[in-house]
């Protein structure tokens, strides 16, 4: 919680619904052939259609529609067999046609859900999806206040970019849940190749609606009632962390406000508040947008779209498993914990593929998963880059793990070898040889153990007295004599020899 937030009250229910805009991963815009590439110089990815020049016409990008259907199917939505486009009319300089082509009363999909599960088993939340529809993005206004001229510059590169708008039911019950659910949504859309969900580049934008249900006079059980505070829509949040922080702040603010004003929903118009991230507060925005009338009507320049069952079946067939299914599959197939499966799946499809290749080569999931979590992910985080570029490929890592299992060297030696292979790019055999690691033969080992026992009568006595763990004291000494010895073997052999002495 931020320093600015008033103290949190107890005993009320937080009610949160989200509106998420996701940019679809298409090469070209929704209604023209212009590129959607991010970062080009202003107004260089435009044509008469996305500039809204007189006489220009839109033509639907089929790829955008297909991606949107994929997203809706993954969100368990019903896909309408017939859908149409509508114009949403309003004036703004970054909206060159004076209307946005969107979907109003017949969105292409509705009525879905997405569940988020806490990997530690603490909680889960099923969030209903009211609708998913397609629309074109507006351009970008840059208010040039710094230069002192107060000019506004318009960049229309983004105008016409395909967006999927996802509207949830008010099913979320805490800011933490909202953040976790957004993470799950993002992961799902990235897995499906629907969007890169990059918030910095604006390919994922979130608005949150929040209010509080506060039991009065003991609540319904005691014959009281539930007071609902006015719904506030929060905008301008540019990370999931901001979403969580803004909601935490807003929940506290609403409760404090309610305590003084007792204002309830319906008595005041819905308020829009902007999140000021550096200040850590939400601030009221103008009410104007709430009162505007968009005069929606069917877009006469486009024809309705019909969706066949065959097309849906084909799309479903081409879709890869969503993260939830993948987590369960990894858990079941490789006998790893739900938590481990969650960590692996949350890293993305390529890492899962790496893990599966590794587990396959090792012939066992748990060990492979441990190596992934403790070594691969850690070094990947330190190094940066993607798993696809990671120099130690699964067969190489499997070789190291296999030799640890065989007893050629222990796990910590294995880690050293892994680090050396990673930095030098040499083969495992080379690294093993250069580190002077050679398998110690059994006769040699027996001789070494006998020597140790002779030098450590106290430990021998302790073990004989039943304190078997005292044998651990021999391992360090064994390593000094020969760094290549396997500590497990040394320990087992020493204990065995002491018993025989007994």
């Amino acid at each position: 919680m931020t320093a600015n937030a008033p103290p949190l009250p107890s005993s009320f229910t937080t009610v949160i619904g989200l509106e998420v805009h996701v940019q679809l991963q298409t090469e070209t815009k929704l209604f023209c052939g212009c590129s959607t590439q991010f970062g080009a110089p202003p107004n260089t990815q435009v044509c008469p259609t996305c500039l809204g020049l007189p006489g220009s016409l839109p033509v639907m990008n089929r790829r955008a529609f297909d991606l949107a259907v994929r997203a809706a199917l993954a969100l368990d939505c019903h896909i309408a067999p017939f859908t149409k486009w509508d114009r949403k009319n309003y004036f703004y300089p970054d909206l060159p046609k004076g209307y946005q082509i969107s979907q109003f009363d017949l969105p292409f999909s509705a009525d879905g859900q997405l569940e988020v599960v806490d990997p530690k088993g603490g909680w889960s939340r099923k969030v209903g999806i009211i609708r998913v529809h397609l629309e074109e993005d507006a351009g970008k206004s840059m208010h040039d206040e710094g230069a002192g001229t107060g000019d506004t510059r318009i960049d229309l590169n983004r105008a016409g970019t395909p967006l999927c708008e996802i509207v949830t039911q008010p099913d979320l019950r805490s800011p933490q849940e909202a953040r976790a659910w957004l993470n799950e949504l993002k992961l799902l859309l990235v897995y499906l190749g629907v969007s890169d969900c990059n918030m910095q580049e604006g390919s994922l934008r979130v608005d949150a609606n929040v209010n509080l249900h506060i039991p009065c006079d003991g609540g319904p059980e005691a014959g009281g009632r539930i007071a609902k505070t006015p719904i506030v829509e929060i905008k301008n949040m540019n990370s999931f962390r901001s979403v969580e922080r803004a909601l935490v702040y807003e929940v506290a603010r609403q409760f404090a406000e309610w305590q003084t004003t007792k204002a309830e929903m319906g008595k005041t118009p819905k308020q829009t508040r902007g999140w000021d991230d550096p200040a850590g507060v939400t601030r009221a925005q103008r009410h104007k947008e709430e009162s505007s009338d968009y005069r929606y009507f069917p877009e006469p320049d486009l024809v309705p779209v019909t969706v066949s069952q065959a097309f849906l079946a084909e799309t479903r067939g081409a879709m890869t498993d969503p993260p939830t299914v993948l987590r369960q599959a990894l858990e079941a197939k490789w006998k790893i914990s739900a938590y481990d499966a969650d960590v692996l799946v949350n890293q993305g499809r390529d890492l899962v593929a790496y893990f599966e290749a590794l587990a396959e080569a090792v012939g066992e999931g748990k060990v492979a998963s441990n190596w992934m979590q403790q070594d691969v992910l850690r070094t990947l985080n330190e190094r940066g880059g993607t798993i696809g570029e990671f120099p130690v490929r699964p067969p190489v890592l499997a070789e190291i793990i296999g030799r640890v299992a065989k007893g050629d060297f222990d796990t910590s030696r294995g880690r050293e070898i892994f680090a050396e292979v990673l930095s030098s790019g040499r083969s495992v055999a080379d690294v093993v040889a250069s580190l002077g690691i050679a398998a110690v033969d059994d006769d040699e080992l027996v001789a070494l153990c006998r020597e140790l026992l002779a030098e450590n009568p106290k430990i021998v006595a302790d073990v004989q007295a039943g304190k078997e763990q005292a044998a651990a004291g021999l391992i360090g000494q064994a390593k000094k004599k020969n760094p290549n010895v396997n500590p497990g073997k040394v320990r087992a052999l020493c204990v065995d020899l002491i018993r025989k002495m007994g």
Partner: protein
Amino acid sequence: MQPAELSAVELVQAVRQGDLTAERCTEAFLSRIESVDGRIHAFLKVDREGALRAAAAIDQKRRAGKPLGPLAGLPVAVKDALCTFDMPTTCASKMLANFRPPYDAEVVARLRAADAVIVGKTNMDEFAMGGSNENSAFGPVHNPWDLSRTPGGSSGGSAACVAADMTPVAIGSDTGGSIRQPAGLCGITGLKPTYGRVSRRGLVAFASSLDQIGPMARSAADCALVLETIAGHDAGDATSLKEPVPAYSTDLERPLAGVRIGRVPAHFGAGLDPEVAHGVEEAFAAFRAAGATIHDIDMPHAGAGVATYYVVAPCEASSNLARYDGAHYGHRAEPGRGHRAEPGRGHRAEIGGGHRAEPGRGHRAEIGGGHRAEIGGGHGSTGFSKDNGGFESALEEMYCRSRAEGFGPEVKRRIMLGTYALSAGYYDAYYAKALRVRRLIRQDYLDAFQKVDLIGGPVSATPAFKLGEKTGDPLAMYLVDLYTVCTNLAGVGGISFPCGFTKSGLPIGFQLQAPALAEPLLLRATDRYQHLTDWHRRRPALAAAPG
């Protein structure tokens, strides 16, 4: 050989055979324009140099033995609602007075590719809204048959251009009768094709679900020739039909025996000028003589056509015209109260001159990086002050004043009608209801075409009226569209052509309507009629200015 005396079909033939050069042909029509258009004002722009250059290129091509396009050397005038990359496209509006599109309309591109010569852009009612051409921001067109009268509208410039022999063919657009009515009032032949038959890409939109581009010429045969070039699927227009384009010119001569023509008795009620009624009945008689049969039919919902049209069209227009806000191109009011906007400032889309961008084909127009809209949303940078005239912001003031100055009264009236009809609380009573009636009207046509092959009747209730006669009475002006709007609401095709003259020498028009994609029959029936009559050969006694 006098080019003006030849039909378009003959002209193209003459150029192809080398009997006439494209340059000479073009020069002849340009001189005609120069000698008579001062009195008619059919053109907003004549591109003498461009036309002669195009003609010379065609002659060169012929001399080099290269194949010529189907319209080789044919001078064509284009309504100023179609985008041309080499000429301004104004829609006869102050709003677009200096707007130069970066691309050609699909129809213009097809005409050029067929080796037609684009001679200029014709006058019209502002944004195609009107039936008399008096709504042009640049002054009305005069009817060549009587200069004190209107040529009709909104394609009045194109109709007058052909009627006065300034070009053999012209391109018009028809949203509620804007090709057929002026063709009727000017004594020429005008075809409104089936919705979707001709690409709308590059036609500045008035009402997208009704707009359709079509040819205007002296005869059905000439219309057929032009339609063969401009019709056909365009991947850049989602409402464009995919059906193949028939060879309209080749089937014109088949007799009309067995063709059933419907006659709607309600068309002959009060309000129809007796001379027009007579001319129309005579035409029915001529069709009967040509072998067709005439059947009285009922169009039960036609009476609601004008009311329906004046909801649907303004609703779409209110949205289509929202883009003219002064922010990106077009007229922008100067800051300062009561200050008159200087034409010519900031009117051009700042896109590399002559650069042709084709939407939907992966082609990009590049605006110079850092294109500045300078709108100063609330910052007052444009000089619009916040406490000026009760505007919420400098931005809102710029919008309101730019649109107030840039649009004429009829355009404003329709934007307001449409905005009102689409507003929350009124949508169901107006727009939604109009769509339901539109479906009933469409059904009337489907039912009628079970019984007949064509529907005949008047185009306009009266011959050309005097300029200024109806300008004070918008409702009387809207009734000018009585016989034509249903065709657009139903999305079918219609053609109008002269079927006689009043005693005072004004043309009387006849209209035929046909089922969707029955252009071959529309053109054939008209052509057969024109073989029996010579109304379409008459020319106004418009003396050429000497020298």
